């Protein structure tokens, strides 16, 4: 069966920096995968490659078998790749409703977009703040609104870059529930540092280090792997 997204020997160089090294990554339809790695491992660059914000130096990105390596920046979004960025990226001068509505409206009529926006805001728990300007929201709320913006377009693949960053314990629990609920209909790739959060949501974890994939396994095996502990958690193997 054709994977939802596949990268083949993906490389990116920024001058002398080799940010992504021969990354081979495969994700099936409706799969949930967590990607971990220390700072500078190339996780965000990997997401930028998948969403057309950065062009690969070499290698291929295939979305349902179609090569999207050299697409225009807006085309991956049209194909159905949605992303929640590391720092919430919203239209600060527009209301929460308008932020989500713009996402839904691209592929739907006004009536449908209105309905989807209402449903999405309830889903992410932001219905009460529909009229608030996005720029006035707290960090946690901005994260949820951005998740709402992404799911309102109903993309088959959703990329979440540190969705629980800066959240309280209660907010982290709620975000984990939300992600598992979204995963019933969408494939997800989640970049996260919080290992407890990863345990809550992941069945399979990919470890990036210095731009390369070094291991793919279950969360428990990854966390008990001495090499991973050494390079990711900064612990020496016993």
């Amino acid at each position, binding site marked *: 069966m054709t994977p939802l997204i596949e990268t083949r020997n993906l490389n990116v160089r920024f001058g002398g920096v080799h940010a992504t090294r021969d990354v081979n990554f495969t994700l099936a339809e409706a799969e949930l995968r967590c990607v971990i790695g220390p700072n500078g491992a190339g996780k965000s660059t990997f997401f930028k490659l998948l969403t057309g914000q950065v062009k690969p130096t070499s290698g291929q990105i295939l979305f349902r078998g179609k090569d999207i390596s050299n697409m225009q920046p807006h085309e991956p*979004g049209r194909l159905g790749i949605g992303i929640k960025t590391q720092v919430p*990226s919203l*239209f600060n001068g*527009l209301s929460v409703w308008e932020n989500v509505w713009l996402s839904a*409206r691209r592929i739907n009529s006004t009536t449908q977009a209105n309905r989807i926006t209402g449903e999405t805001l309830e889903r992410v728990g932001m219905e009460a703040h529909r009229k608030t300007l996005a720029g006035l929201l707290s960090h946690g709320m901005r994260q949820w609104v951005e998740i709402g*913006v992404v799911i309102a*377009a109903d993309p088959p693949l959703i990329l979440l870059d540190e969705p629980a960053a800066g959240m309280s314990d209660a907010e982290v629990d709620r975000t984990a529930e939300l992600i598992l609920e979204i995963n019933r209909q969408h494939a997800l790739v989640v970049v996260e540092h919080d290992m407890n959060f990863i345990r809550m949501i992941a069945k399979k974890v990919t470890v990036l280090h210095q731009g390369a994939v070094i291991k793919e396994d279950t969360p428990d095996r990854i966390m008990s792997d001495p090499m991973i502990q050494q390079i990711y958690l900064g612990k020496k193997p016993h």
Partner: protein
Amino acid sequence: MNRFAQSWVSAALVLAIGIALMFGLPGVMDEYTLMQGTIYAIMAILGVSLGFIWGFGGILCFGQAAFFGLGSYTYAVAVVNMGDSTVPFMLAIAVPALFASILGYLIFFGRLSDVYMGVITLTVTLILFNLINSTAGPEWKIGNAPLGGFNGIPGIPTLNFPGQVDKALSPGDLFYLTMSCLLVTYLGLRCLISSKIGRVIIAVKENEQRILLLGYDARLYKLFSFTLGGAIAGLAGCLFANWGAFTSPTIFSLAQSAQIIIWVIVGGLGTFVGPVVGCVAIQWLTTQIGTQQTFNSNLVLGAILVVFVLLVPRGVVPSLGLVLEWIWNKLKTKAMAENAACPQPLLPEVKFTAPSQTPSTANAISITKEQAA
């Protein structure tokens, strides 16, 4: 107030004021003053064109005067050759729009940054200024219309009623036409920004990266707003050529380009009324300064720009809106506090024993009256 500014109530209010001015001013003004009103309205259309692409589209164009001048020259050349002004009027909108679309395509699809946008638009305006300035002499003509170089084109035939070449518009008619164009432009742009296209145009200004990630091609929306801005500026240029029956290369000048930006900064970005207020206020001030010899008008305009950038960066209209909002909130808070402090009216205590049947409203009232007595 922000919500009020975006509401249809504010649009209706602005239109009502505009219509009142349109029909009221000719009754109280002499012909000379009315013509002053016409030129204010023409320049207000030009100001609105920049207010739209900059305030809503986030495109700082230093060359709005280029589209204004092109509209003016297109009308002049076409009407001299054609006689009837109907087609020249349309060409005066279409040619600047086409020019803006070509220029915009090169800028937006070439993914040039905002800095280059300013440099290129300003350079194009100055190129046109120098080009038209160099067309003195009888060999420089298009059809029967001599371009006239730095002397410009005098004696431009005024707009006529469609298909009736002999029936030219009077100064009063031109005032009505100009005010109608201003109001239609305002209403059209208000409708546009309320539509999906308008919301995306604003979203591109807010966060271009996010709009791309949502799958919208930001370049197309920028190109659309830039082209529409060019068309509106062209319309203003056409009306300008009619106002004085004359056009010259000075309308492509650096001073003209800078003045439009000052109108928008002073009036306020992000509104359509702001550029109109800024334009009328600055135009009036420039005219007043022109009647005396103490101050140079450019010096005063420069000082006004500096003062506004430093002290009133939002501009007159948005700042006024904030002040009114503050007053409104104060009054609302005061009224709520007074209500809270006001003692509740003392009502006689009515004790009901458990009735076998629910008392009717009439019974309840009679009980209250008896007890009160």
